[in-house]
């Protein structure tokens, strides 16, 4: 699509010339995000805009709506499913400059922020007040809160504290018609009207632009402890996880690594016991309570025939035990240079079946898959490994993607636990949702965004 010059001029009058760009060098950067090779479309936006106030965004969106120009809100562009890719052209709103912490309320325990603030930067500020934001994802060093809210992001601690949806109390949203509304409540609970907050969280930029975000915050725990255990079969590791989740352990993290990821990390240079599986469990809370739960946890681990365990109490020891899990991404490059990361999530009772199914797909398609993830949530990241210089290997990798999603749904799961639909999973929605359910979603979208300007082409299958 082509945007008329007078619209560009109008945008410049709203945010200033230096915050509008149609330079090819800039547009090319905003045609992509962190998505993988299976997203083949690469459309340039027509213009990139860097707003810093709600008023600017309201004026921009109103203008776009009148002229039927697509608007694509963008945080740090670290999403993996193409949510920030402007596949219909139009205006990309880069919100990274809009990054202030507006208010911290420690009495009612919330913080009000602008969408462009990076998760870890917010947590560093909260720590000074004795609080933290639990659901931050693994990308929190670079991803923005706005993006996290738009995708209903989740992280290591979600197994205890829930995803972003549990932590968003309210939002200031610029609707596709340019009007600004506030949704949500400053109270701990409300039954007043439809929960628009819960609708907007995870809407992937298709219903409006978040200009202010009110988040619950949690007091930092008195203590944390990490336990790792390794096993000679994946079965025993899965049983451990299931027993932990079914007991009164309440882990604040329950992660798993399979043999392939363990071997890759060892090759990368980090010491790990060579084994079929490693679990990493974190406990947090009052010291005495953590110690008591640790006793119960050790019993579960022993019962499930762990070959060995390690416990980290001091911060450096905890960090050392997390090192292997956190090094998986770079370590996998030692197997194959390219990766597609999936995000399949099943009920915890089906965890072992999921592992077996992944193994089957890997053998059948003759493609390396390293699996690890948030086992306590039943959410695994099977990383499909390939060399993009070999076209037929690429095709096998992409086939694996589809097979993994089919497997997940067969086991009663969801095709995405935390990453979102975007472009990459849009055509797979019918695998998980009925036609009727999607019709309701589409009706809501049409009601809020009748001209379909807000991040068009995302979430909904074309059919």
């Amino acid at each position, binding site marked *: 699509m082509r945007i008329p010059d007078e619209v560009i001029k109008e945008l410049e009058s709203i945010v200033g010339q230096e915050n509008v*760009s149609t330079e*090819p*060098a800039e547009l090319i950067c*905003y045609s992509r995000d962190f998505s993988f090779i299976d997203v083949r479309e690469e459309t340039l936006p027509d213009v990139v805009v860097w707003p810093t106030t709600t008023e600017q965004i309201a004026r921009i969106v109103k203008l776009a709506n009148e002229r039927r120009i697509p608007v694509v809100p963008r945080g740090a*562009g670290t999403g993996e499913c193409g949510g920030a890719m402007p596949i219909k052209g139009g205006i990309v709103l880069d919100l990274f400059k809009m990054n202030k912490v507006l208010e911290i309320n420690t009495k009612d325990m919330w913080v009000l922020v602008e969408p462009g603030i990076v998760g870890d930067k917010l947590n560093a500020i909260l720590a000074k007040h004795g609080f933290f934001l639990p659901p931050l994802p693994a990308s929190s060093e*670079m991803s923005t809160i706005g993006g996290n809210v738009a995708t209903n992001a989740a992280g290591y601690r979600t197994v205890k504290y829930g995803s972003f949806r549990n932590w968003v109390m309210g939002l200031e949203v610029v609707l596709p018609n340019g009007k600004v509304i506030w949704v949500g409540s400053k109270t701990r609970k409300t039954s007043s009207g439809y929960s628009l907050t819960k609708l907007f969280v995870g809407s992937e930029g298709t219903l409006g632009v978040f200009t202010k975000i009110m988040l619950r915050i949690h007091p930092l725990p008195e203590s944390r402890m990490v336990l790792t255990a390794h096993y000679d079969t994946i079965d025993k590791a899965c049983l451990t996880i299931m027993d932990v989740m079914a007991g009164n352990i309440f882990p604040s993290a329950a992660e798993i690594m399979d043999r392939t990821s363990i071997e890759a990390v060892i090759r990368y240079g980090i010491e790990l016991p060579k084994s079929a599986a490693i679990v990493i469990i974190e406990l947090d809370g009052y010291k005495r309570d953590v110690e008591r739960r640790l006793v119960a946890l050790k019993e579960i681990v022993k019962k499930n025939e762990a070959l060995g365990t390690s416990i980290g109490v001091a911060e450096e020891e905890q960090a050392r035990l997390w090192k292997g899990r956190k090094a998986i991404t*770079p370590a996998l*490059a030692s197997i194959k240079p390219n990766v597609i990361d999936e995000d399949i999530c099943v009920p915890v009772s089906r965890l072992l079946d999921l592992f077996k199914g992944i193994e089957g797909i890997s053998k059948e398609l003759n493609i390396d898959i390293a699996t690890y993830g948030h086992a306590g949530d039943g959410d695994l990241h099977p990383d499909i490994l390939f060399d993009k210089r070999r076209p037929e290997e690429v095709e096998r990798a992409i086939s694996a993607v589809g097979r993994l999603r089919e497997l997940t749904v067969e086991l009663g799961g969801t095709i995405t636990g935390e990453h979102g639909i975007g472009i990459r999973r849009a055509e797979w929605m019918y695998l998980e949702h009925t036609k009727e359910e999607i019709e309701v979603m589409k009706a809501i979208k049409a009601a809020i965004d009748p001209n379909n300007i807000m991040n068009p082409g995302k979430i909904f299958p074309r059919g």
Partner: protein
Amino acid sequence: MRCTHCGKCRMYCPTFEYVMKESWGPRGRVFIIEAIQEGRLTIDKGVLDRIHSCAMCKACDEVCESLVKFSEIMKGLRNSLTKQGIGPPDEYKEMANTILRTGNALGEKVRLMDASPLIKKLPDKAPNLLFLGCVISSSYMNIAEAMIKLLMRAGYDFTVIKEGEECCGAFLDLVGLEEEFKDSLEKNRRIFSSIGISSLVAICPFCYGAFLSLGNQLSVQHSTELLVSLLDEGRIELRKEFNAVVTYFDPCHLGRWQGLYDAPRSLIEAIPGTRLVEMERSRQLSRCCGGPIRMAFPRIRAGMSSAILKSAREAGAEYIITACPTCYHNLRIPALRYKIRVCNIEELVAYSAGLLDKI
């Protein structure tokens, strides 16, 4: 390239920190390079600006989880473009000519003989050479004098090139003029050979790095390394107190480029009364002052220097100690605005050795 486009580098890139637009960060520059390679982008002035505004600080190399050595990719790209007659910015082409004409990157042909009365006291020949470099010889002889006084006090047998010190050419290598850099290096190699020295100590990290490549013919040290040895041997004594809270600023070309983080810190810690604090981002994660892009991208460079000064203030420091004349130059003037003072490591050590009355 194994870049997965994860975006982590954005959080450490000094040009991205200031501009906050994707194309002015490492991931954006990767997108641009990939687009050029795949024929999706033609090289225009905007593209060249993104390519040449990278300060080659290596912060992205340091943090990249896919182990991409972006600074090498950037260097290779700049050289390849230059050979095709594309770039570098005019300011750098000028500098290459200036170096050829005057032997000094700043265009000031300096006879060290005339630059300081101390130089006259040095012998005409010695086995060890103190190399000053363009920035010091043209603008900051105070740093040179501090170092010369220290070496004299230590009884170190050295001299300088009293006439005809030639630019090391390091800057040229950064901007895609590697042939011109090789010429400068060769010129210097011949000078060193003709005056017959066995070791060289450089105050400027750029010179240090450039001459390290002559390492098999010459022993090369940075000034702080030599000062630490002299201190350890008891040839310099630091008695005078300097009662202040200071922070040390790691120059990119000493720290990330050469792995030299500890020697300057040992010196500071040896000074009585001085308390060393670290900035939030120090050592391998320290920020870049913007030196290499100062001429062509002054606004970005100013933003980069400001971020460092702000961080030093937040760390509670009254002084920033530098070990690079370019960093010293970039930080000095804006420092006034941040109510913090900039001091060079050689001057600080000379002061504590009783060789300078004040800093």
